[in-house]
């Protein structure tokens, strides 16, 4: 079945300062799903099938990115939905919010060079999150990153466990899919760019910005299709 046929409704949570919400809505519509904007002040979720926490600078990224949004009223309901198995995707700032909220392991610290970085990166699929279709371990995706605080860290001793349990979704790699320190744009431990826990997935790159070749890459489309459980096109 195509997305148009299933008419999946995707809640897009908008916090004050979110700024990738429109881009995400557009991407979701391109794929044939129905976006539904959810205000951060809601305490209950309407009838939706999936949730996205889009990128941006919620609350200006003040204090720590994602921290202030993680305390928003809607986050209780997001937590409950996640526990109940609803697919939740956090992109960039959304990823930071999910970590701050404890719905994903680890934390995202400022890039060690102290600078924002925006460019196309190659990501290697290290484990396929549950429910994803059409992605395989070892696939490479070209996706843009754009963040100031993307240095993924976990508490002592936790890294091994993440790999063991298949929670490491994406790693920054070279174009051939080889992961090494030179391909690490932000000091993330083990080049980790995305993780998963249960039905929750977070990633620093922006799939919604890579929806067509003329934008530099169409691999974001492929990634989102996979999240929807749709088999997308071919990898690189």
């Amino acid at each position, binding site marked *: 079945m195509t997305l148009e046929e299933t008419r999946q409704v995707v809640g897009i949570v908008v916090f004050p300062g979110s700024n990738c919400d429109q881009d995400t809505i557009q991407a979701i519509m391109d794929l044939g799903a129905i976006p539904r904007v959810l205000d951060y002040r809601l305490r209950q979720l309407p009838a939706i099938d999936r949730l996205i926490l889009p990128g941006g600078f919620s609350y200006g990224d003040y*204090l*720590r990115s994602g*921290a202030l949004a993680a*305390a928003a009223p809607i986050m209780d309901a997001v937590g409950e939905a996640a526990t109940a198995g609803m697919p939740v995707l956090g992109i960039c700032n959304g990823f930071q919010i999910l*970590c701050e909220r404890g719905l994903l392991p680890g*934390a995202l610290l400022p890039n060690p*060079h*102290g600078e924002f970085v925006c460019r196309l990166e190659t990501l290697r699929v290290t484990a396929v999150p549950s429910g994803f279709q059409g992605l395989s371990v070892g696939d490479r995706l070209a996706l843009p990153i754009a963040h100031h605080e993307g240095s993924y*860290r976990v508490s002592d001793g936790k890294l091994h466990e993440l790999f063991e349990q298949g929670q490491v979704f994406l790693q920054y790699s070279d174009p051939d899919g080889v992961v090494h320190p030179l391909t690490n744009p932000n*000091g993330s431990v083990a080049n980790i760019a995305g993780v998963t826990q249960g039905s929750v997935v977070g990633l620093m790159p922006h799939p919604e910005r890579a929806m067509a070749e003329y934008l530099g890459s169409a691999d974001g489309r492929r990634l989102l299709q996979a999240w929807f459980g749709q088999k997308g096109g071919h990898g690189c």
Partner: protein
Amino acid sequence: MKTYRLGLHVGLKEGVLDPAGQATLQVLHQMEFAATEVRIGKWIQVVIEAEDEVRALAIGDEMGRRLLANPVMEAFDVTVTPL
């Protein structure tokens, strides 16, 4: 109700790499300061209303745990000054 100023020192936990601190240390060396270690954290001051100092301290602690520090990476301490 009285007014207090809470002061929270929030810093990376012992053992967590602090690249900003390292970079600053390097610059201090360039400037010929005899420094051996730099750690950079936050200093957050919050003015609150509370019944007494003990209560104020407890509120500061709760703020630190729930919002002002990240439990995965950061540790904090709280001081209270009556205003």
